[in-house]
């Protein structure tokens, strides 16, 4: 052995051990989403090179599209981690945009955002308490609140958009930027980082994961599983509300359907990102990356010139494929 390879060997061995440990523990699954993001980016960069995919304005556009998806996905990660699901996030986002628009005109931008978040937390608390107390699967509870919240949003301003004229609100939550970085991206990074830290560094995050992995075991160790499930659903709804604030800030309106159709996209982003649809495994960073994947796909399909109807079909197929792939690996494990 030459001295050179002897010096290189420890690093190599360490890398191999790290890889082996990863494989045995969580599998390499958590990293698939980043590879997928890079592959899709490369693919579109080649096929769509003459259609403006790589222009700065288009990349920024992808980022802006990804922002609300990523914020919702970060919240949904906690619901799924706790083995719950929140189908009402789309309508919560929409209602929150209206509430923000309504309140911001009267009481200023902080109150506007706070009111929206409070509405979200309230919807989440209702979802959680009904799930836990009445013992109905959150799947069904949130399917119900989806309709209720959506109806309330439609009643609120008679299907009309509510314009937002508060410049501070628009700068902080939408059109503004800090230096060259759009405030939307900044918020996304903040939410993603916060979610990641909460999941990995706080007791609550570990308890959410424990309850989702094995509710009986968590209960046997004295964890208040009901409290964890309710707060996980509150987190997902509050995040959806914040996405509503960001959408309202970007578009300068509140409207009954803002973000309403994002539910499937968000679920796909979270699951592609390595979170188990049935609890016990979660990645906030993966969910954010999954959101970028979904936004890129959306953007690429539009640039390819697909009609709206065909986009819907293509997106549906992609979602099923992506989820099927990640579920298959989960079953194998």
């Amino acid at each position, binding site marked *: 052995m030459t001295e050179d390879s002897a010096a290189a060997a420890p690093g190599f061995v360490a890398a191999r051990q790290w890889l082996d*440990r990863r494989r*045995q*523990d*969580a599998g390499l699954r958590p990293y698939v989403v980043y590879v997928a993001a890079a592959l899709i980016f490369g693919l579109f960069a080649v096929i769509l090179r003459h259609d403006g995919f790589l222009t700065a304005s288009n990349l920024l556009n992808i980022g802006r599209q990804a922002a609300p998806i990523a914020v919702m996905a970060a919240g949904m990660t906690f619901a799924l981690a706790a083995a719950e699901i929140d189908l009402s996030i789309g309508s919560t986002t929409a209602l929150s945009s209206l509430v923000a628009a309504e309140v911001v005109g009267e009481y200023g931008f902080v109150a506007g955002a706070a009111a929206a978040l409070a509405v979200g937390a309230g919807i989440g608390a209702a979802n959680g308490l009904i799930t836990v107390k009445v013992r109905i699967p959150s799947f069904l509870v949130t399917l119900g609140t989806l309709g209720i919240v959506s109806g309330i949003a439609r009643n609120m301003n008679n299907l009309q958009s509510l314009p937002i004229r508060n410049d501070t609100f628009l700068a902080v939550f939408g059109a503004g930027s800090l230096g060259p970085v759009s405030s939307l991206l900044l918020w996304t990074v903040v939410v993603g980082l916060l979610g990641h830290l909460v999941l990995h*560094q*706080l*007791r*609550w995050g*570990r*308890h959410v*994961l*424990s309850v989702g*992995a*094995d509710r*009986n*075991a*968590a*209960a*046997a*160790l*004295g*964890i*208040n599983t009901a409290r964890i499930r309710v707060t996980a659903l509150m987190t997902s709804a509050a995040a959806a509300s914040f996405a509503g604030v960001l959408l309202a800030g970007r578009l300068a309106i509140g409207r009954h359907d803002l973000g309403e159709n994002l539910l499937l996209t968000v679920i796909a982003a979270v699951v592609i990102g390595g979170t188990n649809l049935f609890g*016990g*495994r979660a990645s906030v960073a993966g969910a954010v990356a999954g959101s970028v994947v979904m936004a890129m796909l959306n953007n690429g399909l539009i640039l390819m010139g697909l009609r709206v109807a065909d986009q819907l079909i293509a997106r549906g197929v992609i979602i099923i494929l992506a989820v099927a792939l990640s579920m298959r690996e989960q079953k194998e*494990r």
Partner: protein
Amino acid sequence: MTAVATDDRAALEVSGLSKSFRAVRALDDVAIDLRYGRVTALLGDNGAGKSTLVKCISGIYAPDSGVVRVNGVERSIPSPEAARSLGIETVHQTLAVIDPLDVVENLFLNREHTRGGRLGARLGVLDKKRMRAESSEILGRLDIRIPSLRRSMSALSGGQRQAVAIGRAAAWGQQIVLLDEPAAALGVEQAARVLDLIRSLRDAGVAVLLITHNMDRVTEVCDRAVVLRQGRKTADVDVGAVTKDDLVAYITGARSGGLA
């Protein structure tokens, strides 16, 4: 583990315990005493009520009637948390380990150390370094060997998972440890290690309740044996005073023994 004096004081006294599930009377007026520094075997056929009794003591089931005394003081145990805060730790048949969490996280689950002062404690900011250090200390003291503390439980063998579950109970069960068939799925060598663990708990003065089907284990480590049959206690005897055949006879209902 703080060493509790190995005297003959009762750690846990249960009397008149009954529990029904609809029409089925799972436990009928059962009494059992656990003493510090003693291992009590809880024996009985499948469905005799052993696990139900353990679940009533560990706060998972609420008994219909009965009195539980811990250190001579009457207590109600409405939740697993209540049991744990009374110093009662349980290793359930299912082990209650969380697969995606690592060894340290499992050992400290719901007993986490936090850092960052008061605010950190409120937020629950985990002190991972301290928990890791204490974990290796706990496992080292019990001579439990795990390849890496950062391994997730799903990557461990059955024996290692069992060892972590018992290690957790031993680490927190300062007074009373309930073991529901802890060696059921283990190989010979691993089962022997579990018995060593039980002995070291006993020597540290802990009151141990051991559910098992294996009569050899009873004679090897247990001081007393309580036998349940169809939810009723049919024997409560010193292990030294009976033979394995006697125990089997109590379990099958051929005889009863030691009851006042």
